[in-house]
């Protein structure tokens, strides 16, 4: 089981209390689709993803970005059992959506960058370490059912 220090727990919860999933989610997802264009393969039904502007303003991307961040927020509520919390999501991503799990890390990196941009100098190395540890755990839990 993952061990969290008090600092890590407090930091992760504080970040999620501060950010708006309706803002950070779409920003992170659209950034991922722009910076790592192969990820667009999973969003074939989303309509126009032709360029950065189209992606940014695509209503499906906006809606789904929030879904992704809300999913991360659920993990924050269950820090001591993220694996069980994500069991169904993991099956969904592996069997139905067939997402290459390497892509989870790419989206996680975009979430880090968007949160860094929002928090500015409050996103210290210690805060970054705690936040990225959380994202790594979430990514690992999502990949658990792939075998």
């Amino acid at each position, binding site marked *: 089981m993952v061990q969290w220090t008090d600092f890590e727990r407090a930091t992760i919860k504080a970040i999620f209390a501060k950010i708006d999933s309706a803002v950070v989610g779409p920003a992170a997802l659209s*950034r991922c689709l*722009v*910076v790592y264009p192969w990820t667009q393969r999973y969003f074939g039904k989303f309509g126009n993803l032709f360029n950065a502007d189209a992606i*940014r303003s695509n209503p499906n991307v906006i809606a789904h970005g929030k879904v992704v961040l809300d999913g991360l927020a659920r993990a924050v509520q269950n820090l001591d059992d993220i694996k069980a919390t994500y069991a169904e999501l993991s099956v969904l991503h592996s069997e139905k959506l067939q997402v290459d799990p390497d892509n989870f890390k790419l989206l996680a990196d975009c979430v880090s960058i968007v949160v860094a*941009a929002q928090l*500015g100098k409050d996103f210290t*190395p210690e805060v*970054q*370490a705690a936040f990225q540890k959380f994202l790594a755990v979430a990514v690992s839990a999502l990949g658990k059912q792939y075998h």
Partner: protein
Amino acid sequence: MTSLSAKDKDTVRAFWAKVPGKEELIGADVLSSTLMVYPQANPYFSHFDLSPGSDQMKEEGMTMMDGFGEAVAKMDDLTPGLLNLSQLHAFTLRVDPANFKILSHNLLVVLARMFPKEFTPEVHVSMDKFLSHVSNALSEKPQTEASAVSAQ
């Protein structure tokens, strides 16, 4: 050699133009993040005073940022341009190239923090491509007479 489009190069140059004057700050932060978030990178810096804000951290951060600045200047022909740095990293420092990706990520995080408005997805993708090319150039393992001799 490069798949960097003219637009990518212009974007990187324009964004990097914001850096002069802030190299020490950016470099020190990139190093701190790398050491704290990715402990596997620590052994490469074990001979330094790693306390935050130490003179060595600032100097090393500057050195790194000068390296990135050199890469920006030599963007049109990175592999020959970064030959010395590549040899240094491969044969003297002996850095596992996986760490170049880590450093690149932390550079982008610090740049996002410092320039949130300017570090748009469009700038991000060009910078990401550029840094991949820099990492590749650094990973070249260029054979030289000296390294061929020392390998015996």
